[in-house]
Structure formats: C-alpha cells, structure tokens
C-alpha cells in the first residue's frame, strides 16, 4: 500500500467493523468509546488494510474509463484473462489475477484512532520461490508498510507476503499440507 494521505474516518471504520461481523461499540459509538479505556473511537486491528482505498495506484479497484478484468457482458472485461505479468495486482500481498495473500503480520505501536490522518509507505522485502503441490511454481514476495501519524510517529507496521501461482489452486488435492500454501485466499 502506498497512501500519501489515509484519513481514518468514522463512517469507514463503522462499515469495516460491520464487514468483519464485529458489533463492538468502540468502533461506532463516540459516547461509549469516550467512556472506555481507549478514550475515543478506534479502528479494528486489521483496518489499515483499507488504506487501499486511498492508494492511487491500487490495482484491485476499477478505474473510471478503463476496462476492468471482472465480468460484464463477457466473463472478463478484458479480451483475455490477465494472468501474466500484466495482471493488475497490488504490491506485495493481496490477490491479483493469479496473486494470493499468503501471510499478514502487524505490529501495533498504538491504536489507530478515528481522526488520525496516516501516511503509508511500502518497501519491498524478501522474494523466494517454491514448488507447490497444488498450484505449480509459487513465487512469494514480501512487503513492509509503515503507517505513520501526522507527527511522523509509527502507528502500525505491517508485513505482507503475497504469492503468485502458475494456475488456480487445486481444490481436489489434500486440504492440509506444508506451509508452502497457497491453499488460501487473497
């Protein structure tokens, strides 16, 4: 993720909390939050992922006026499915045409609060390959994103591992397996 300006807004946090099925009022009710230990509305622990909304280059959001690879009149809005290097995809983790999210790690320096205006800067990490049992050659790549507040202080450090696969993950194979995944979801 690279969002120069990621404003943490109450309505966005409310919708995010609903989407993960969490009715905790510390995410939605200012009076409850003010009286709680944290003292004000905060965001759920995985909320920083939604900085994608503010990343101008994020590849998994339809762009106005440009073809989208999801279905419309045809199963894909592109002439052919983009599964190669030209596939729209995020940096590091997240799913692309053939990219999936393998791991996600967060270190919290303080809670993310409604009203924060964060910046996200991402640097690439390690890259490695493995032969997978269910999806051919797997290429893993790591990225580290630092979320800082308006004072430049670290709020959350995120490490994401994405994996690109040769083909769709087979579902008729074993459901358990070694850690070389990607038996998982973007």
């Amino acid at each position, binding site marked *: 993720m690279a969002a120069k300006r990621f404003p943490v807004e109450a309505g966005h946090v409310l919708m995010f909390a609903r989407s993960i*099925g*969490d009715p905790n009022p510390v995410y939605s009710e200012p009076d409850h939050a003010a009286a709680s230990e944290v003292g004000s509305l905060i965001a*759920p622990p995985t909320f920083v992922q939604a900085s994608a909304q503010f990343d101008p280059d994020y590849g998994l959001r339809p762009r106005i006026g440009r073809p989208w690879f*999801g279905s419309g009149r045809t199963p894909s809005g592109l002439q052919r499915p983009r599964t190669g290097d030209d596939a729209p995809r995020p940096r590091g983790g997240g799913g692309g045409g053939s990219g999936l999210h393998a791991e*996600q790690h967060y270190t919290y320096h303080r809670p993310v609060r409604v009203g924060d205006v964060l910046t996200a800067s991402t640097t690439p990490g390690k890259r490695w390959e493995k032969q997978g049992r269910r999806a051919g050659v797997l290429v893993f790549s790591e990225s580290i994103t630092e979320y800082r507040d308006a004072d430049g202080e670290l709020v959350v450090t995120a490490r994401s591992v994405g994996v690109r696969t040769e083909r769709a993950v087979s579902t008729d194979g074993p459901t358990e397996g070694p850690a070389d995944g990607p038996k998982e979801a973007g």
Partner: protein
Amino acid sequence: MVLEAVDLNVGQTFSAVVAENLSRTQIVQYAGASGDYNPLHTDEVFATQVAGYPSVFAHGMLTMGCTGHMLTDLVGDGRLLTFGGRFTSQVWPGDDLTTTATVEALGRDDAGRPTVELAVSTTNQDGVEVFAGYATARIED
C-alpha cells in the same frame, strides 16, 4: 473484557464462533469496506469461468478480520501489540469459522507491563485450519 495475568495459565484456551454460514453479501461488504475489489471474491462469473475456482471465496483479510474480532473481544480494546499469521486454506461462502486462542506464555514488555502471547487458529466447519497465527497483548497483573 480485560485479561488479568493471575487468571491465565499456559495452555488455557479460549474460543468463539466468528462467522456462521458466511454469505457472499458479507464478502461484498468486506470488498467495499477494504477496497479490495478483486473479482475472485465477489464475481461468481469471473471466479468460475475465468479464474477456474468452484465459486467466489473470501478475502484472506476477511478471515483475519473475523479472527481479530475474537482477539479484541478476549484481550480488550487497543491492547494488541502484535497480530499475524498465514492463510492456510480457502474460505468459501457457507463456511462457519471458529477462532481458538491458546495461552503460550505470560511475560512483560519493555516497560515492565504484563503481556500474554497467544497461538491463534481459525478453523472451518470441517475442522480445517484456515488461518494459523499468533498475537501478543497487554494485560493486567
């Protein structure tokens, strides 16, 4: 809820259902809120006919978000220090997810405050692990 070290023992487990009969609509809600509009998760036509999957499937981060719900209910608001893990199997519409947290260790942070280390596992209705991870949190003495 705030955890107190005196009440915790290594090996103790806590568990909660974090999704029941996961709907395509909830996956759409997560796509809209997170901004990850990958059609693999929300577009059955694309997921089946172009990408070759049996149906759409949940974002890994939706599973992690549901898992985080259980953790924040357990340790209290704003108390997580770390939270991470691997997405070990796909989550499909209709799945039921249960998260289990196991006390691995009790310790202190750099400021001398008590902490708990948890092993975290989310499984589906067939007992297949879909998220395998960990968390650490600040607790009380």
